[in-house]
């Protein structure tokens, strides 16, 4: 998928699986067992914990196994605003990331094809933000837009912002940060898809009297759809669960709390493990639904 662009030369896959035998099991077993132990089992652990009840005999924050489905009702009721907000921000940030990344990916993947070294360098620039701690880069935005910063005071002076209005702590800032941090996740899959686009389709479109915008709408866009879909999945899902950008220490405030913040505070601060787990399971459930819709349409081979 996306990361393949990072890993190999632009050579497309040529070989098909041919061999069979016991070696496969030896190759797959260790890694898959590891995932089974440290990915699947924890997910089940989450489900178990989400159904726990407070220990009647225990002290603060001790729980015993149970079947308290009411935990889910509680969590949905209590945190509905946060849930909706999360998906709202995620949707906004994903759309923004798509709009910003698509022309960039198009430029690198289609227009710059005659200069492969430039393509590689530009891709490096795209993922460069990854190489600096994402906390540091989010903090950089916070400081650039902080209440006393040059940017904010200028906007206030120009009358675009009220004297008591600030940027940091608003939904705008959170979405801005989310978009920024996840642009590479959107650009790489788009690039991979557009890089494989056969220009001759576009030429055929022009030859058949389609204007440039029609060519884009009817040919380029549909053909790059796999990239759009995988980019959207790769962006929307992590954004929905993010809590750094919305946290009060970074770009958000208590009014911009997302599911991730709630889970984090419930787990690490209030120690309300069942609620945190219930929310996690809900979040995971939504994601599984999205992924299964995708898999139903396109199968599993393109996932990796």
């Amino acid at each position, binding site marked *: 998928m996306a990361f393949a662009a990072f890993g190999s030369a632009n050579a497309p896959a040529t070989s098909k699986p041919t061999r069979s035998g016991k070696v496969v099991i030896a190759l797959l077993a260790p890694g898959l067992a590891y995932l089974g132990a440290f*990915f699947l089992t924890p997910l089940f652990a989450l489900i178990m914990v989400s159904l726990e009840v407070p220990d009647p005999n225990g002290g603060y924050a001790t729980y015993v196994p149970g079947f308290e489905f009411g935990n889910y009702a509680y969590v949905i009721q209590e945190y509905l605003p946060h849930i909706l907000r999360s998906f709202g921000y995620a949707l906004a940030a994903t759309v923004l990331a798509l709009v910003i990344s698509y022309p960039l990916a198009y430029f690198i993947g289609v227009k710059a094809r005659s200069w492969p070294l430039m393509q590689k360098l530009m891709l490096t620039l795209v993922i460069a933000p990854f190489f600096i701690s994402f906390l540091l880069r989010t903090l950089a935005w916070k400081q650039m837009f902080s209440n006393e910063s040059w940017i904010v005071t200028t906007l206030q002076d120009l009358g675009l912002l009220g004297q008591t209005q600030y940027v940091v702590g608003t939904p705008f800032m959170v979405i801005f940060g989310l978009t920024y941090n996840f642009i590479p996740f959107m650009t790489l899959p788009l690039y991979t898809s557009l890089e494989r686009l056969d220009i001759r389709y576009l030429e055929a479109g022009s030859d058949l009297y389609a204007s440039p915008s029609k060519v884009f709408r009817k040919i380029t866009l549909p053909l790059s759809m796999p990239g759009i879909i995988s980019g959207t999945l790769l962006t929307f899902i992590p954004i929905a669960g993010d809590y750094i950008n919305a946290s009060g220490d970074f770009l958000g405030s208590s009014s911009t709390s997302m599911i991730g913040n709630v889970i984090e505070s419930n787990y690490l601060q209030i120690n309300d493990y069942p609620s945190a787990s219930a929310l996690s399971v809900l979040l995971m459930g939504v994601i599984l639904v999205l992924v299964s819709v995708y898999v139903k349409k396109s199968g599993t081979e393109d996932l990796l």
Partner: protein
Amino acid sequence: MRFSLGKFTLPLYAVLAFIYLLIPIVYTFVFSFNNSLKTNLIWRGFTFDKWTNVCQREGVCQAFGNSVFIGIISTIFATGLGTMIAIALVRYRFKFRSSVNLLLFLPMATPEVVLGAGLASQFFNLGVQKGIWTIIIAHIMFCLSFVVVTVKARVASLDPALEEAGRDLYANPTQVFWKITFPLLLPGIASAALLSFALSFDDFIITNFNAGSDMTFPRYVYTAAARGVPAEANVIGCAVFALAILIVLATQINGEVKRRKLAKVH
């Protein structure tokens, strides 16, 4: 394909986009030279001090050291396990392919809060004390899938006839792997290792859930964010950034040089 505004729109857009992507990096870099005291919010003057005395700030270098250690160990295991899976997926036919693909995809698609909380619950249930090794276990888990994806692309572009030629020329399967497959896969494995290290080094959320009192570099930054991140953190961040960019650029330029050297001869 042209936009109606002329053929410079797209390159101009790209330049603007790159500037946008790089602004925080430049900001962080500039402020690593700030002659700051406790917080690094206001510019006080230019100094090299923070770069030359970076370890004087309490905790920064320990956190950095921990992150490097965790990164290296996680990368070794994730790359080993992941490479084996990638080879199996590309070269072999087996029945439960779709399930394996799905199982490998899900950790990449699961939000870090869920991964972190789940593992933390699991460790708690097992009575395992959180520490450096729980962090490493967590990192191996989420880096695995990324390694598989990266190596898989490389394996798929490898001509299977090369391995068959090896067997035809009296090499048993083990020799074929070490003398033919592995050397040719090495660039892909190296990319995967680099990616895995980068993901591990920069990880915060999963680490935060599964660390005891141990500090990694991102944890250090997070806990310092409330009162003010010291410029020394900027120094380390920028140093890592520079190193990573250098490695990637060096690899790409090296690849290009090699390609040009291999001009056809008769």
